[in-house]
């Protein structure tokens, strides 16, 4: 087959890839064919007939749908002939027969393909005088999505998305003929992590989201491209703002990362930005939360650092800062270290608030993969956290790769949700409850068949906070010896890779609590992190912070950590700051500012700058841009560094791959007796989610999982609501049976309130609860 073939469209010759659809080939050459049902990321169905074109066939000219007809050498296509125009008019006239004329109250109006194409290709007048068909308007099909069936033109984009792309077909066409409608099964709502994508791809206003309903008109929106913090995939997004309020986030099609899709958390987790609870002025917590000023607080902090000798300073950082902010913090630490020579400061350390941090695979020992390697590898190996919950858009890419014939092998007990996608699921027969191997790696059934001499992409990371990581290294070593291996390091949270790249040495929370020396004076900064929640070390961190002499929190909201602080400094976040973000494949992307800074909040880096200057450690930067050009000097390959200038070039909008030396110093935390497997669910109780009303309830259910042998056998339960007891802790939870789990392992979501004080190595007791009502955190 040749690489390119020639076809003739509207009298001019264009070249096309063989096997392409006519609509795609035309699109690539800048010829737009109207369409409703065709979407380049989904299989064609030919539902709407809007894309009809005329082609020449041996029997003369014929009208064919260009979205289901492939090109062939010397094909002659006419997209604008009179016949085509007549067909387009006809299709639109039919589509409008039952379409309500409620554009004035429809969210889609102004960006509606049906409206736009009716203007461009429609008949201009309707001949339909009969009554239109009616349905109840709109019905909720989940907590966050509404469906107006009258407006639906039956393109099947939403139903195909939920089946082909996200793999949770909870909506389908029901009924036939005039009554055909999209709907859910009664009492089975469209609860999908990806439901918001259907709202974005619906070509009419049939699917709308509760968070955006009646909020704005598209022509009033200010828009900017950015990169989502939702996971370390770094999904490309478009931020939509009106009157200085973020109203909507849309997915942008980045070929290398999210390919247009977003998880609902990535899409709807933004209302917190405008929450009344946002901290907008510095607060003196110990002084009954008295409002203070930047000047006063900076004075207090620099005095604390300098007034007495030999203070230990710790920074606990989160994963939502920009690369520039991490870089500025790192510079600040280096500066403090310089002062250290004068003996006023003891040891200074940086800790990342992430229980899944471990040393990983970096720095040339192995070849690192990209997400796109999913599409070229023969075999995909997954041994990491629950991908669907923690890297939702990466899950979509894996699902797509499997659909295209790639073999997926899953190890361990965390990815039970995608077991059905796997060729081999190496669960309890291969991996113990403590995530160690039961058998020699070389004896794992069928493994060699899938890896020997093959292209393998291994997505590896810690599955559980308490986990001996040596088996991961053993597996990777085995894979490396037997296959053509590439590794995708699975650190799932936000800009973790940015932190790792720009902070000289990073440790974990376990190191923080063990290294803490209470005989010294201790100053602790928490920077966009809430380590007193969501971590298995939470209770220890809490004790440590109570013990510390001076705690400063840079944050957006009051939370469990800021309660223990002396000072809270208000900071900016997603949409309010400009900077770069590095995703898990070390692709650096732009995050843009479109919202004003709230109150007297400052960017994190501005605080480090002011503090440096207060201490006469004069810094040579004044803007993000300057920080960016400074940090760009450290990249290993200077050929294409992710500077603002470079990233804003049209050719680099999909991000720039580049690496830096990474030093992680995390000790292996062995566990020999795991009773509880802590997992992170997509929805939890972070301040940002709690303060986003549209999605705040999605993370409130408390449930645990176990297999039925454990449920009936070990615990002898018969109620799906139980009380979980361990020492002084007692929590009411729902029980979900999950047969893919091994015996005697309870899966517990650590990012939902109430679970952090459990000791994962101690057995819990479960008692049937008296009432069967759904239990939620109130």
């Amino acid at each position, binding site marked *: 087959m040749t690489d390119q073939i020639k076809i003739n469209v509207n009298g001019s010759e264009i070249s096309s890839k063989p096997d392409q659809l006519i609509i795609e080939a035309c699109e690539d050459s800048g010829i737009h064919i109207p369409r409703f049902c065709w979407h380049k990321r989904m299989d064609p169905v030919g539902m709407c007939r809007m894309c009809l074109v005329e082609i020449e066939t041996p029997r003369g000219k014929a009208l064919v749908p260009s979205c289901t007809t492939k090109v062939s050498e010397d094909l002659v296509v006419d997209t604008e002939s009179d016949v085509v125009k007549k067909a387009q008019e006809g299709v639109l006239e039919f589509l409008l027969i039952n379409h309500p004329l409620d554009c004035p109250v429809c969210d889609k109006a102004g960006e509606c393909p049906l409206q736009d194409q009716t203007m461009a290709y429609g008949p201009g007048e309707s001949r339909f005088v009969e009554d239109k068909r009616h349905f109840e308007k709109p019905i909720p099909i989940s907590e966050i999505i509404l469906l107006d069936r009258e407006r639906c033109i039956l393109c099947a984009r939403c139903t195909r998305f939920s089946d082909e792309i996200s793999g*949770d*077909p*909870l*909506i*389908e*066409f*029901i*009924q*036939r003929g005039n009554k055909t409608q999209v*709907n*859910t*099964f*009664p009492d*089975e709502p469209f609860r999908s992590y990806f439901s918001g994508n259907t709202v974005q791809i619906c070509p009419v206003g049939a699917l709308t989201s509760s968070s955006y309903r009646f909020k704005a008109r598209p022509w009033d929106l200010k828009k900017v491209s950015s990169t989502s913090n939702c996971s370390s995939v770094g999904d490309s997004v478009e931020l939509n703002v009106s009157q200085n309020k973020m109203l909507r986030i849309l997915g942008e099609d980045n070929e290398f990362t999210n390919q247009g899709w977003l998880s609902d958390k990535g899409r709807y987790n933004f209302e917190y930005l405008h929450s009344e609870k946002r901290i907008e002025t510095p607060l003196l917590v110990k002084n009954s939360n008295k409002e203070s000023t930047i000047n006063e607080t900076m004075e207090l902090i620099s005095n604390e650092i300098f007034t007495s000798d030999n203070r230990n300073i710790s920074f606990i950082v989160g994963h939502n800062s920009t690369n520039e902010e991490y870089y500025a913090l790192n510079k600040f630490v280096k500066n403090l270290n310089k002062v250290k020579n004068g003996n006023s400061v003891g040891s200074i350390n940086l800790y990342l608030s992430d229980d899944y941090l471990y040393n990983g695979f970096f720095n040339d020992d192995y070849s690192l993969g990209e997400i796109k390697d999913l599409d070229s590898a023969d075999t995909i190996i997954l041994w990491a956290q629950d991908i669907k919950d923690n890297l939702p858009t990466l899950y979509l890419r894996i699902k797509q790769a499997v659909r295209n014939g790639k073999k997926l092998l899953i190890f361990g007990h965390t990815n039970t949700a995608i077991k059905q996608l796997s060729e081999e699921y190496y669960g309890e027969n291969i991996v113990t409850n403590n995530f160690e191997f039961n058998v020699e790696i070389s004896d794992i059934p069928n493994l060699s068949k899938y890896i020997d001499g093959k292209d393998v992409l291994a997505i590896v990371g810690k599955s559980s906070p308490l986990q001996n990581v040596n088996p991961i290294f053993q597996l990777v070593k085995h894979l490396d010896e037997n296959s053509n291996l590439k590794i995708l390091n699975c650190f799932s949270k936000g800009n973790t890779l940015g932190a790792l790249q720009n902070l000289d040495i990073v440790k974990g929370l376990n190191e923080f609590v063990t290294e803490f020396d209470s005989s010294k004076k201790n100053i602790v900064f928490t920077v966009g992190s809430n380590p007193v929640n969501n971590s298995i070390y939470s209770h220890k961190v809490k004790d440590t912070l109570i013990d510390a002499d001076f705690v400063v929190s840079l944050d957006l909201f009051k939370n469990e950590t800021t309660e223990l602080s002396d000072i809270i400094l208000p900071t900016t976040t997603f949409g309010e700051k400009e900077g770069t973000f590095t995703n898990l494949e070390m692709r650096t992307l732009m995050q843009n500012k479109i919202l004003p800074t709230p109150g007297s909040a400052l960017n994190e880096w501005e605080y480090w700058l002011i503090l440096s200057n207060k201490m006469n450690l004069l810094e040579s930067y004044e803007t993000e841009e300057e920080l960016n050009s400074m940090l760009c000097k450290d990249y290993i390959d200077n050929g294409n560094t992710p500077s603002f200038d470079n990233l804003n070039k049209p050719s680099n909008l999909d991000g720039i791959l580049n690496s830096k030396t990474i030093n992680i110093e995390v000790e292996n935390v062995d566990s020999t007796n795991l009773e509880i497997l802590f997992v992170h669910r997509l929805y939890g109780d972070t301040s940002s989610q709690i303060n986003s009303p549209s999605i705040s309830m999605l993370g409130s259910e408390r449930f645990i999982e176990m297999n039925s042998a454990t449920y009936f056998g070990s615990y002898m339960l018969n109620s799906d609501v139980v009380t979980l007891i361990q020492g002084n802790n007692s929590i009411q939870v729902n029980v979900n049976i999950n047969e893919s789990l091994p015996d005697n392992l309870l899966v517990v979501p650590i990012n939902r309130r109430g679970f952090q004080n459990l000791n994962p190595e101690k057995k819990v007791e479960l008692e049937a609860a008296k009432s069967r009502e759904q239990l939620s955190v109130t």
Partner: protein
Amino acid sequence: MSWEKELIDKANEIIEMYPQKRSALGPLLYLAQEKDGYISNDSIVEISNLVGITEVQVKSVASFYSMYKEEQTGKYLLSVCKSISCEINDSRSVIDSVKNFTGLENYETDTEKVFTFEEVECIGACGGAPAVQVNYETVEGLTSEKSVQMCEWLKEERPEIIVADELQEKFGGVKSFDWAIKDNTGTSYSVPGFQNIGTAKEKSQ
């Protein structure tokens, strides 16, 4: 659990006849319909678990085809053909007299749940037009008198199993083909009789 073990075993036997579980959907829906006279949501949940697709996907198929009923039918589903061949052989009078006898409009079921009446498109018996089906068992060459007699007989006798040949003998007229092999099997509810899925019922002589 809305399905008894026996029915589930039967369903699993059917599933085994297909290379993919979901391909058994059609027959399983007939099992559900034979059980209740319509496809209940409980049965949909059961089938979705059995074949491994979501409930709404089952519902989508069940609500698309007109032979899967969404509401309970009477013991006897009377499907009177209204298509062209029957029409020109005076199906109008058959339709009218059946309607008249039962007092039902299209898709209605009487309160005692004896009859459901429906007008349907061609049932493939054009050669013997006008034709009617009772629980999908076909009678050909009907007249308005014969069709009323048939309804009366059904109402009084309440036969458990409806057999086409028996109906034909008692009430039918001209047949499309009269050389067909005598068949003593029929159906017991508003479901076509298929040997391989067990909806065909043998009538003892």
